[in-house]
């Protein structure tokens, strides 16, 4: 119980840190931390496969970093960024409402699936899942991390030099 | 062994013709002797093969297309005639062509012409026949083109006219082969009972009468008469083409199709024949050039043959065929006399000729014999064949007979004018030193004139042995040799000839000269305008054709420009516009790109859910 609470607090604070920090590097680390904590929680809830996927997706989310990097290449002032956000908010504020509305209409009026869903999997050994079922994914994730390292090496480090 | 001799009739002139092309211009003697001896060899071979019946078949590409030759009564007669004219005109041209250019070409074409017409006469397969027929067309072009400066244009004209009609013939051959299921001529016998067979007949007929030079496919012949070398005129349009055209016409109307007096094509043939007779002879009347005048008669006489064969009655057919050989004889004889005059005097313009009878007595005698023969004077050959044609014509309708007799009147009139203008009257001082032509030019003329006389006086000889056997059972036991059966028709003929002489004397009395003896017809109130137009070639179908082609080419040019505009202008403009439009859509704004993707996604979901 205590462990659950601790991990929940850790998750929330890590997520907040990720969003609030101004440093990109810290933001990236925060994201990884958030994802790691979420994985732990999933293990605790015995959703082993989901946990493994979360770890994978987290690795896949590293490209988000590059999105930020690239978007920051345009030299906007703090004020400009605020104004842009305001205008975007003004433009897109109806979007969530529309999306939710369409989703509701689809759920209520749209076609319904007749597929017999399979039962949730029985709790298999995490080690087994990692090493025997998702071994290839694990290797892939390692390669993604390696790629991310190169990305940082190429795009961040030298950027400082040139700047 | 003897069957292979058939091939020799083609191979001998073919090879010597080809060799001729490769002989250098300097070896004139060798070329001349090659020409004379190979044509002599052809003549001997034709005599040897005469009246024999042989077939020779060489299986070729496919069963439908085999190299099959058949020698029988008709073709052996045609072979002999070809070889006869070939030899004597070769003898003549050796002298005539001296000092002219393109000897190799002319002699080569001459020999090849013998080879290819032999091929036509012997072929028993329509496709093989057509091969030789087309090869002959090429020769026609080549032989005219070696004439004077204008000759190339005339050669093109001849090539186009005969080429187009040969195209019709090709269609006809395809259609005939399809209808009868075979290409072998001797196995064809189609009844003319429906539109398709009639069409096939007419297509083949167009090829045949165009080769014969009938109207409206005649217009290159008068031009060729002035532009092409004279032996060509004497050999090809006067003799060979008549033989080829009438041979093929006879084959299609007697053998390949069952033409009877009830057939529509019979009326068509007679009409073509009658029109050709009268219009061509009217044109001949007004000519002021020896050769050009003769060439219109070459056209006009073909009308008699077509009329005779078109009657589809034994008398007419026999008359037509007899007229074919007679015409070949006297017409080539007349052209040869024209050649002598040209060679000795240097011109054939009638204005500059006159009084040559004393200077060139042999030529004049030969001219006289052949001229009275063509006018149909008893006892020369032309009289007997014309009488037979009249006999056939009157069986089918008095109008054809009337036109044929009228044609005879004008023929006689124009030859009276020609003879008067060229050989009688006053000798112009420039021609005072004119001498008789040399011996080897006279020999052919004399022989031909003699044959004209023999075929007239002893008309049983050609009719019983050469012509009547061709008809076989269609002759129905008739025998047309001897003096004509109908006395009153003979009386009419004599009356017409007498009228022609009277007319001539009347004309001479008015105008005072032989050349202008027919001017009262030329300048008659109604005729004058028509003649003016005709001299401007208003009635030349070739010129109409050229006009139509011109219009078509203008239209095509317009279409071409429009298509060009569509392809080079409009489509490029459209593609560029579209391309630039697409380019403008790519603003680089990623939210637009995302929006496209969203739209695409919605469409795809729509398709997936609906289908």
């Amino acid at each position: 119980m205590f462990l659950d609470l601790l991990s929940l607090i850790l998750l929330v604070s890590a997520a907040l840190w990720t969003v609030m920090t101004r440093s990109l590097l810290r933001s990236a680390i925060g994201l990884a931390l958030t994802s790691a904590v979420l994985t732990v929680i999933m293990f605790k809830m015995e959703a082993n496969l989901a946990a493994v996927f979360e770890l994978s997706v987290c690795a896949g989310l590293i490209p988000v970093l590059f999105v930020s990097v690239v978007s920051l290449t345009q030299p906007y002032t703090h004020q400009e960024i605020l104004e842009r956000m305001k205008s975007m908010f003004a433009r897109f504020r109806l979007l969530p409402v529309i999306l939710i509305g369409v989703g509701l209409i689809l759920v209520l009026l749209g076609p319904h699936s007749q597929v017999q869903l399979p039962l949730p999997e029985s709790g298999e050994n995490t080690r087994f899942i990692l090493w025997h079922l998702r071994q290839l994914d694990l290797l892939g994730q390692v390669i993604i991390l390696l790629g991310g390292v190169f990305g940082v090496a190429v795009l961040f480090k030298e950027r400082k030099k040139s700047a | 062994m003897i069957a292979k001799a058939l091939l020799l009739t083609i191979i001998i002139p073919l090879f010597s013709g080809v060799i001729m092309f490769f002989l250098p211009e300097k070896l004139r003697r060798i070329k001349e002797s090659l020409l004379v001896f190979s044509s002599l060899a052809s003549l001997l071979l034709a005599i040897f093969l005469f009246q024999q019946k042989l077939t020779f078949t060489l299986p070729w590409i496919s069963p439908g297309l085999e190299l099959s030759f058949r020698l029988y009564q008709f073709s052996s007669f045609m072979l002999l005639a070809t070889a006869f004219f070939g030899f004597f005109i070769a003898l003549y041209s050796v002298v005539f062509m001296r000092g002219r250019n393109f000897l190799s070409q002319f002699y080569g074409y001459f020999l090849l012409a013998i080879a290819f017409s032999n091929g036509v006469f012997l072929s028993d397969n329509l496709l093989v026949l057509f091969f030789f027929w087309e090869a002959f067309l090429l020769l026609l072009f080549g032989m005219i083109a070696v004439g004077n400066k204008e000759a190339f244009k005339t050669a093109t004209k001849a090539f186009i006219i005969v080429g187009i009609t040969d195209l019709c013939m090709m269609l006809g051959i395809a259609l005939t082969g399809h209808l009868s299921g075979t290409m072998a001529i001797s196995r064809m016998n189609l009844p003319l009972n429906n539109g398709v067979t009639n069409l096939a007949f007419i297509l083949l007929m167009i090829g045949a009468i165009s080769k014969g030079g009938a109207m409206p496919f005649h217009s290159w012949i008068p031009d060729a008469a002035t532009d092409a070398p004279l032996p060509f005129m004497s050999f090809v349009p006067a003799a060979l083409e008549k033989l080829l055209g009438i041979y093929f016409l006879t084959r299609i109307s007697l053998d390949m199709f069952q033409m009877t007096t009830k057939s529509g094509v019979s009326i068509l043939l007679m009409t073509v024949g009658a029109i050709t007779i009268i219009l061509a002879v009217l044109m001949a009347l007004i000519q002021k050039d020896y050769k050009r005048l003769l060439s219109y008669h070459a056209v006009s006489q073909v009308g008699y043959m077509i009329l005779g064969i078109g009657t589809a009655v034994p008398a007419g057919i026999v008359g037509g065929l007899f007229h074919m050989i007679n015409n070949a004889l006297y017409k080539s004889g007349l052209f040869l006399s024209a050649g002598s005059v040209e060679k000795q005097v240097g011109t054939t313009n009638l204005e500059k000729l006159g009084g040559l009878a004393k200077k060139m007595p042999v030529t004049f005698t030969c001219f006289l014999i052949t001229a009275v023969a063509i006018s149909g004077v008893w006892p020369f050959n032309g009289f007997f064949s014309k009488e037979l044609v009249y006999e056939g014509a009157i069986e089918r309708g008095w109008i054809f007979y009337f036109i044929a007799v009228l044609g005879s009147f004008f023929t006689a009139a124009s030859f009276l004018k020609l003879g008067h203008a060229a050989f009688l009257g006053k000798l112009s001082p420039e021609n005072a030193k004119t001498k008789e032509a040399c011996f080897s030019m006279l020999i052919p003329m004399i022989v031909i004139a003699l044959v004209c006389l023999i075929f007239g006086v002893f008309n049983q000889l050609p009719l019983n042995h050469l012509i009547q056997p061709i008809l076989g059972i269609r002759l129905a036991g008739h025998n047309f040799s001897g003096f004509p059966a109908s006395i009153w028709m003979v009386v009419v003929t004599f009356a017409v000839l007498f009228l022609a002489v009277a007319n001539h004397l009347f004309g001479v009395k008015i105008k005072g000269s032989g050349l202008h003896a027919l001017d009262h017809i030329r300048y008659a109130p109604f005729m004058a305008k028509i003649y003016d137009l005709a001299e401007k070639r208003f009635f030349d179908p070739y010129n109409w054709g050229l006009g139509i082609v011109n219009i078509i080419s203008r239209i095509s040019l317009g279409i071409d420009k429009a298509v060009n505009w569509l392809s080079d202008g409009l489509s490029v403009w459209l593609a560029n516009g579209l391309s630039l439009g697409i380019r403008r859509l790519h603003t680089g704004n990623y939210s637009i790109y995302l929006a496209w993707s969203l739209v695409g996604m919605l469409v795809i979901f729509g398709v997936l859910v609906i289908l």
Partner: protein
Amino acid sequence: MSALLILVPFFSVLILNLPLKGIRKLAFGGAICLSLLQMAAVFIPDAAFWKINPHAFGSIFSFELSADSLSKVILFCIGLVSFSALFATRQTLKDSAGRFNFINIILIAVAGMNGVALAQDIFSLYIYLEITAISSFILIAFNRDILGLEGAFKYILLSGVATVLMLAGIALFMLIAGSTSFAVIHAVLLNHNKDFLISLGIGLFIVALFIKSGLMPFHGWLPDAYTAAPAAASVLLAGVVTKIAGVYVLIRILVSVISFSPAIKSILLLVGALSAILAAIAALTQSDFKRMLSYSSISQVGYIILGVGSGSVLGIAGAALHIFNHAAFKSLLFLNSAAVECQLGSRDIEEMGGLAKQMPVTSLTSIIGSLSCAGIPPLAGFWSKLVIVIALWMAGFRAYAVIAVLGSILTLTYFLILQRKVFFGKPNAEFKDIKEAGFSLTFPALILAALIIGAGIFTPFILNRFILSFNSIFGG
């Protein structure tokens, strides 16, 4: 054993980055050797090498990988194009440290692409797609100029959308089948086709792959990314990356997981025809050498999708053949553009002209590449286009067959425009002293040109065997 194709590039990257003296100099040679070995490995006939073979290495490295004819074609293309791209780095990247990083990223991309080609699991497929995508982002933005970053950004953005859609699709499939293995999902989908959830999953997947392949109207990122990328990266991207990430995965999913339905066929044909024609028209008026080639790429991918859309073995064989041919001629043409850009410092074809005399090898090879792309016999491109058109005709999609032929004419048109403006026509006085590009750009170009001619001449002989081997795709 086929796992080596992933493991060897991966470990090579690790070893190259060990802090050993002089090891960095081995990077180029080593990578070239790897690409050559990969091409050679495709011809290993041993079935055991390619089949699923768990526990072969003991307990570690027992992957569920498998390769059929289609995978082998793709693996060969990867080797070929990475070979060309590696050569291109030598002249286009002057900085040796940068070049070393570039080679490392290429190796990572190769590992990722090999994984895509071999994966038999929908989730593994996704992971390796991401590897490929990330390395591509880095390659595009490598020079850190504003255009490169913009191109990479657009790619990331649309690729991110594709990723989300694909993940959603994977989630739906997993929800339905309870597994992510191709075979299991395939079996489940066969039992309930026409269900709403399944249609949704298929739709999500297809749209994701359309975005990744850059088909119209999902292509917005592609011209910018290709044009802005460094020359060597363009070669790799255009030659093979988008073909793997989009087209190959699409074929693989269609054949091994979803199977064809009339709706899917009509979508594929529609999108393929749209891309083939509109992109070709758009290429007509481009003035940037690489941008024109980018639109040509979209158009050619449209062709491939048309072949796939016929839904027959012949069509898929034609598509695979065209993937190979496209890899050859488009890499070649991008190499040519790199050579021109390197020597002239410009990509604007309006400024060029008469370069045929100064750059004979580049000119000649680009003519061969263009003609192959336009489908002129006897070059290789003709045969694959022919097979696609025949497959469309035989499958009854006659209108699309005609469109495919028309697209070929447009292709020829814009390549003739390109040739006329760049290599023929009036020379620009400004570029009077231009010389032929260096060996490292002309050598791979010559090899590719020879390959195009050779493949074209021998296609009739191998075509039958090649297509026969494709029957097994459906069986497996």
